[in-house]
């Protein structure tokens, strides 16, 4: 019980909520700062919060699909920055990972949290490298390597880049509200070619697939009144890629939205809030939490219209016992005019009643 409450408080500390009175100055997110690589692949410990978010579809030996997800959060707490103790909790690392297995019909899930100390958990500057114990996501040249060990699953995956980063928003400056204070630096690595192995209940097998990596950092992300968000990242089969999100207010209406579309042979297109529209097609109610999630969507980006359908309905991530939130994070298929176009991941946050994170 107390464990849950403690981590509830901590979960809010992903830095997504407004109004924390820490005594330190977090670095501000300013328009006009250009992202510089490889430096910006690495961590930005002066900012309050930062994450690396990899999702993707895997193909098993017999051709059946699996979804996977791994997220590392870095949080600057503002506590103990001048402490002489090596245990000072000034930087925390939090992670959660899941495998979406249609055979099982629900997610396999695991999580980790640690203070950055004693090499047990940490991050690297200048390249993407984050870890907690034996969980790791590390960039080596054009490859990302990730390892995760959960209770009933584990995976070791290599993700090869095939294209330069997709800069979301204004050259990576991604606003979350009309007030530009609420913004992040945000780039995506779509169309990652995956190979590696997944182990389910101790049985390992080789897999291949496509993945998507987001890297985003900020000091003041969500505006007042934001109840949650919907996000989607899709690798299209023709090599294109689509990212779209919208923020919802307490009545469930669009508060802000944005999208990025990379089409082969074209300049990346960035869409403004009024050009992005999410409308639910079908809802699924979780038997465990009673929360209603819109698991199928019609997504309008400019003049294009996509339909999103889940790999299976129950991809609810119940992490109330650890990070304290319940949300839906799942593998989806995408079609346009009833024609399958690609695969991706959908995140539905803030549909529960008392969810603090979004």
């Amino acid at each position, binding site marked *: *019980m107390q464990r849950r409450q403690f981590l509830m408080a901590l979960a809010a500390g992903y830095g997504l909520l407004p109004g924390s009175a820490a005594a330190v100055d977090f670095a501000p997110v300013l328009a006009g700062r250009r992202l510089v690589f490889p430096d910006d692949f690495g961590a930005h410990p002066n900012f309050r919060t930062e994450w690396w978010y990899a999702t993707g579809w895997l193909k098993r030996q017999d051709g059946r699909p699996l979804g996977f997800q791994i997220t590392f959060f870095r949080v600057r707490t503002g506590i103990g920055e001048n402490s002489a103790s090596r*245990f000072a909790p000034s930087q925390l690392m939090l992670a959660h990972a899941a495998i979406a297995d249609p055979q099982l019909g629900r997610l396999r899930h695991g999580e980790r949290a640690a203070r950055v100390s*004693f090499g047990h958990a940490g991050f690297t500057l200048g390249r993407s490298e984050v870890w907690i114990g034996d969980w790791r996501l590390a960039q080596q040249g054009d490859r990302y390597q990730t390892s995760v060990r959960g209770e009933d699953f584990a995976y070791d995956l290599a993700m090869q880049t095939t294209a330069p980063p997709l800069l979301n928003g204004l050259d990576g400056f991604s606003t979350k509200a009309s007030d530009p204070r609420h913004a992040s630096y945000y780039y995506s690595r779509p169309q990652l070619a995956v190979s590696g192995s997944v182990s389910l209940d101790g049985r390992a097998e080789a897999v291949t697939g496509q993945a998507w990596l987001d890297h985003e950092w900020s000091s003041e992300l969500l505006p007042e009144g934001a109840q949650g968000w919907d996000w989607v990242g899709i690798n299209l089969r023709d090599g294109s890629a689509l990212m779209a999100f919208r923020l919802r207010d307490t009545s469930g209406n669009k508060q802000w939205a944005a999208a990025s579309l990379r089409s082969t042979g074209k300049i990346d297109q960035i869409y403004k809030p009024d050009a992005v529209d999410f409308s639910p097609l079908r809802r699924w109610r979780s038997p465990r939490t009673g929360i209603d999630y819109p698991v199928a969507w019609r997504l309008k980006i400019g003049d294009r219209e996509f339909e999103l359908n889940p790999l299976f309905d129950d991809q609810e991530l119940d992490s109330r016992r650890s990070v304290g939130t319940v949300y839906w994070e799942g593998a989806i298929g995408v079609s346009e005019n009833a024609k399958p176009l690609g695969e991706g991941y959908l995140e539905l946050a803030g549909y529960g009643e008392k969810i603090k994170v979004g």
Partner: protein
Amino acid sequence: MTLAPVFLGSLGRRRMATLFSLVAIVLGVALGMAVQAIHEAALNEFGRGVRVLAGESDLRVVGPASGFDETLYEQILQHPEIAHATPIVEVEAKLAGHEQPLRVLGIDIFTLARVAPRLLPQSQDKSDRFATLAEQSLFLSQAAQQAYGVKLGDELSVQDGSRALKLRIAGDLPGLADGQRLAVMDIASAQTAFGRIGKLTRIDLIVAKSSSPESLRRSLQGSLPAGVLLEAPEAASEQSGNLSRAYRVNLSMLAAIALLTGAFLVFSAQALSVVRRRSEFAFLRALGLDRATLIRWLLAEGALVGLIGGVIGVALGYGLAWAALQLLGGDLGAGYFSGLQPQLEFKPGLTALYVMLGLLAGLAGAAVPARQAADIAPAQALKSAGDPLMIRSQRRPWAGLLALALSLAACFIPPLAGLPLGGYAAIAFLLAGSILLLPAAAHRLTQPLAERGASVAWRLAAARLVSAPGYAVVAAAGVLTSVALAVAMAIMVASFRESVDEWLGQLLPADLYLRAGRAQSSAYLGADLQAAIARTPGIKHLEFTRHDQLRLGEGRAPVALIARPLPADGSNLPLVGQPQFSTLPALWISEAMADQFGWQPGKVVALPLGGVAREFHVNGVWRDYSRQTGALMIDLAVYRKLTGDLRVNDAAITVDDPASSEQVASRLLALAAGDTLEVARPGEIRQISLRIFDRTFAVTYLLEAVAIVIGLAGVAASFASLAATRRKEFGMLRHLGVSRTQIGAMLALEGGLVASIGVLGGLLAGGGIGLILIEVVNRQSFHWSMDLHVPWGALLLFAGSLVTLAGLAAVLAGRQAMRQGAVLAVREDW
């Protein structure tokens, strides 16, 4: 059932005797039950605490109380056989204005959540997302909040060295059991607040599924620094249980003796009652009651007394336990479980056991008289009342002497599982031997009186006792047992108290003692403060002492390390035996070290100081009454050279002019802000120590009183039951012209003589038992020696009063019988 009024009803007809037997059994059962219930409660509470603190962990890395280098954590994290590890900094925090330190655990919530989730703190302010990590925030258990009279949101002033530090009570520990006083704070804050940067005191481990605790022990133990070791989480519970076990068993033995006395009283009452009912039984036998049924009914009489005694006893026992827990705490004031608030629990099994013990005592007491009653030939019994008591007193001293020899031999049995079982056997044999020798001794002692007695009453009384009749032996044996018990306790406690007093004098030669708090707490005197103390005017001589606790081996309780300036010959220590010298650094060990580790002067041993094993030569053994698990003393300069630790815990100060010692004291107190420093005078320390001593022995004082009451009750019961059977004799004497007064005097003398014989035997046996308690039981249980001190005055006063009271009891008992007319009494026989 038709015979029930005949037999069980007889208990009601001899109310006094029944009552005394009952009281003795009640007391025995109650004391045993209380001791057991209290300890069960304390151990349970302690064990529950240990389990919560240990959580899921399989093993823990432990070291000296001052901690070990935190880089070990890095090494542990990389060990492939370890699934989870959580680092802990444990501090006994000195709170300004509180004597009892607060146990504070500096924890890492992230790793702790896997290992011991019930220890996780809960923040009061739910909106502050990092409240549990915040600096200078303390999370206090309910029991600790109550104990220190604070609530959430308050500030608590803790001490690091002599510096007061305000910590905010930011939340509580909802996962903790009731009654556990504990505080938790973030490990980084704890390291900073208590000057423990770079140090850990514990790492709790969960072993990887692919490995096992045994395998991990094998692969890890070798690579740990000296003085750091792996132990099972239950070890703390076991060590504490072992530590208090000897104390508990010793108290239980005293209860057992009370119970034995109860059985003895049942025996004496039954024996006499059987004699009085000889004709009754003869009639019953003649009417066809078979022997076995008679025995069963007589046993049932004893059993009924035992059962009632047992039931009342356990009820009283729980009452006593409850009162003792309220007043003295779970260790009866002995200091084994401080910081606990044990809850009394009803234990059906244990309760049944103690009721059974009461029942057994009653049965055992009734067994011999029942057999004797059944052996009576009905025809003969119907005709004559015969000897008042059928017990054949043995004048052959061989059995008694053999028991004494066995007693001596049992003294040399080493402790078994830390318990002085040989000592208990020796006491039992000594007591048995003394009782067996009693008839012969009674004969020898009364013979001269019978021959050379001055008055009629003297000669009559002595003559009656020369033959050492059964009733006299029974009464004297009762007196002997209770006197022996009381005398033995008195000698042991007096010797102990005197020795402690002398020891305190030797250990506290200075005028003033300055400290910032208890030895193992977060309080200490830093280098600056030491310099300031040294500069204080009016000081002639100054000595600093540093305390730590070392781990010397797996499964061993921590051992105290004391570093202070020591002369080469150890002349300022309360030494036992001859010291030996060498060129190696000197180590002086307490008796407990010598007993438990087998170290002796001349041995070279390795002590883990600052993570490195250092060689020391055991120079000598000193007496230590305060640390049962053992204490090591080394020179402060050597300690500082080997560890680099310049902090100290106390300063012993001799002043220039004794008249100005109070001025010096106030100057010293002014050296640190607030009231973080304490000055104590040897007189105060002595007073406090002796008060604690007396509190610890409060239970034994109670037992002494019980023993005396039981002894007197024995005499009174014997004579009361006897008086009736002697009506014929009194009648005869009156018929012969002996006056009523003379018979009264005769009875008083008889009572006095019987009591004197018992008291004399009791004094001798008690002296012997006292010696066994001092040299065997105490030495083996608590590992300390003491000098013999016999409280002669008190013993003489006690013996005299007992003899007088016994005489009085005999007269009162006889008066009843004398009231009858002489003729009537004589005629009764016909």
